[in-house]
């Protein structure tokens, strides 16, 4: 039986369709994923993300321990700030992409993809060995509710006892929200401004109901994982298992900027990543745009338009709800990755033209 989140009864009340995701029964959509997608782009949406894995690390050497374990430099994150980072294998292949929050001088919260939490936990446990650091899987102690979209600051401002405009992008702090103690972070995975609210499981229903009640006046609707996927795709954000796998390095995915070389003591995967940086990746992640309505999808072959030869593969794709045409991400040879390059995608036997375009497909107006 898949696990139910503390918000399951609310999802049932709201008539959600559920999907099994990484051992959890999660809302896929409530009404229409297109309506939910547009709500986040034009107003706001509320998501249950309790399936995400939370790992807490603390101790006097925790910063150095994480510098060794991850590709980034968590020791340099200011208290109350967050960074996007990755855990890589010795080969440089990505084991998971993560958000690392520094909650206090000697305490971090690492948020992992649901399906990778156990891998991240066991790898971190091995890698911090020898540092004065303790690690705990706190996934069961947190519910996670995201409020995303342009009206989310107004919604959260009405409920939280903090000056929301002062909470910067990729910042986190304790707050009292709807009379509950929470961690309020300005992070997200939709390409919009937004918040992630970490609360105790027993407080999750109250937080959800309060946000929803206030949100109604700001166009907020409950949103499932289906629209979360099209939102992150338009925003050019990678999804583990599709754009990121143990067979890809951060450089292949165009995310070399998250890798920090020359940290004291080095980090796991450094030699392999330095080599990849110096050689340059042979294939890179690109955006593809096409016309019509048939979207390139995960696993479809990308072909050379002159020879018909297979040159790459689509990792994610959909008919973009915001843009109205198909968009996709794909790995292509580096010499075919320039924007403007024409390729063919084999869409179930029929070959459709697509063009390499810069990522992201969608960028919110500042």
């Amino acid at each position: 039986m898949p696990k139910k989140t503390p918000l399951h009864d609310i999802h049932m009340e709201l008539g959600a369709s559920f999907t099994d995701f990484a051992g959890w029964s999660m809302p896929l959509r409530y009404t229409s994923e297109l309506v939910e997608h547009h709500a986040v782009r034009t107003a706001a949406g509320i998501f249950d993300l309790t399936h995400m894995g939370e790992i807490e690390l603390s101790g006097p050497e925790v910063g150095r321990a994480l510098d060794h374990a991850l590709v980034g430099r968590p020791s340099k994150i200011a208290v109350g700030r967050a960074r996007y980072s990755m855990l890589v294998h010795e080969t440089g292949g990505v084991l998971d992409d993560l958000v690392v929050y520094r909650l206090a001088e000697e305490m971090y919260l690492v948020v992992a993809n649901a399906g990778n939490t156990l891998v991240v936990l066991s790898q971190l446990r091995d890698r911090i060995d020898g540092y004065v650091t303790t690690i705990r899987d706190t996934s069961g102690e947190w519910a996670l509710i995201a409020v995303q979209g342009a009206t989310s600051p107004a919604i959260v401002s009405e409920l939280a006892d903090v000056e929301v405009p002062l909470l910067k992008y990729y910042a986190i702090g304790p707050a009292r929200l709807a009379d509950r103690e929470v961690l309020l972070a300005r992070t997200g995975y939709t390409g919009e401004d937004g918040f992630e609210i970490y609360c105790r499981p027993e407080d999750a229903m109250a937080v959800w109901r309060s946000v929803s009640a206030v949100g109604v006046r700001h166009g907020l609707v409950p949103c499932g994982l289906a629209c979360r996927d099209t939102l992150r795709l338009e925003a050019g954000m990678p999804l583990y298992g599709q754009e990121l796998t143990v067979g890809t390095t951060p450089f292949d995915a165009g995310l070399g900027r998250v890798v920090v070389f020359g940290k004291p003591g080095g980090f796991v995967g450094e030699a392999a990543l330095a080599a990849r940086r110096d050689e340059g990746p042979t294939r890179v992640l690109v955006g593809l745009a096409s016309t019509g309505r048939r979207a390139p999808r995960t696993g479809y072959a990308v072909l050379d338009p002159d020879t018909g030869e297979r040159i790459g593969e689509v990792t994610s794709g959909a008919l973009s709800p915001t843009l109205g045409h198909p968009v996709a991400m794909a790995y292509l040879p580096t010499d075919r990755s320039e924007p403007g390059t024409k390729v063919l995608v084999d869409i179930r036997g029929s070959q459709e033209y697509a063009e390499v375009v810069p990522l992201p497909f969608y960028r919110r107006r500042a």
Partner: protein
Amino acid sequence: MSLPTDLMYTSDHEWIASEGDLSTVGVTAHAADALGDVVYLDLPAVGATIKAGDACGEIESTKSVSDLFAPADGEVVDINEAAVAEPGLVNTDPFGAGWLFRMRITGTPDLLDATAYAAFTAGA
């Protein structure tokens, strides 16, 4: 969800309304709900001969692509151009404006009545 009792159904979640020798085919609300928002329809060509159980088109939603199966042997005589132009009709009115195509059935297809189809989906 209410299931029209004047229609016949298939285990591929299609409905058939027969009037004289013409039959209208669509997908059930159960199928439309499972698919999510339909964004593209690839329907069989008018004049095509189709065979029960064979794929004769595609239904593409935001998240997935599904084959459209011929519910019976016969010839396609009309397709719903309005639904091709606005595939969301399959979600908003699956038993009405979201119909897919009309066909002239040959032979006797193996179909379920509403009670049998309801029992079939209850077990799904």
